[in-house]
């Protein structure tokens, strides 16, 4: 019975995070149907996705309860690699307009 009660508690403890994640998903759909420019829409949706992802990592995956050294090893390195991938955009936009590289 004690085990059963504790399991109910864990569900109840994470229900706020669950509902916030569902709320973020619903908000994303609502915003997608507003008339934003594609760039602005991408920025807003990515911002919301990062918030949802951070909640999932910190609370569902319990990274908030692990040692700080694990967080500092994993997260900054991942963010660094993902940020470095952003260097492709200028070439992507050049392709759209078929502009040659400046000499």
């Amino acid at each position, binding site marked *: 019975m*004690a*085990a*059963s009660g*504790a*399991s109910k508690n*864990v*569900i109840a403890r*994470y*229900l706020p995070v*669950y509902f916030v*994640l*569902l709320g*973020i*998903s*619903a908000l*994303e*759909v609502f915003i*997608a*149907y507003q008339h934003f420019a*594609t760039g602005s*829409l*991408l920025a807003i*949706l*990515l911002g*919301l*996705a990062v918030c*949802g*992802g951070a909640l*999932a*990592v910190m609370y*569902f*995956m319990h990274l908030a309860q*692990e*040692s700080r*050294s*694990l967080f500092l*090893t*994993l997260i900054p*390195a*991942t963010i660094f*690699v*993902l940020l470095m*991938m*952003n260097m*492709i*955009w200028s*070439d*992507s*936009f050049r*392709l*759209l307009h078929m502009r040659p590289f400046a000499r």
Partner: protein
Amino acid sequence: MSNTEAAIHAHAGALVEASPYAIPSRKLTMWLFIISDAITFGALLFGYGYLRAASSDWPTPFKLTPSILNVMIMTVVLITSSLTMLGAVDSAKLGDKPKTARFLWSTILLGVVFAGLHIREWIGLMDEGVRLFQNPWGSPLFGATFFSITGLHLLHVISGVVAIVVISRGFSRGRLTAGHVETVGLYWHFVDLVWMFVVPIVYLLNISR
């Protein structure tokens, strides 16, 4: 135990290095796998963004019904499966095998429902003429990127379901521990996390107006 054996055990104990992050090695390995997989999905999504930004005729085929509604249901199903997985991990740590099994099988069921909805979405698009390198609307690379990203995610879901079935049976029979349940739980939450980025980038930026 003889004095010699005791000395050997003490020496071996001194050679075992403490975990640098105070977690079991299997959990650390899963974290490292998750990071590498996150970068794989990141690269795919950046590649998708590259092609989309470079194409003037990128298709925007997703209507509210059936596609976006289907995606919303899939999102609810997947986030709910993360909640049941949390219950499974907690029950396993408390040693409550029947409850762990119920939570794990609920997660499996939700994973199967998600995969079924995903396949229904694919079939709907294929009926409209979307193929890997052609579609009726615009840039032929739409299908390649869409099926690659959602297909890799679907593969992760199916792999996760299979892994949870194996872990569930092993835990019920006493061959596996709560640590195994926790490790597969980490993987399952990661699958949920990836979906949170796939939905806005692949679906919501391409809604039909």
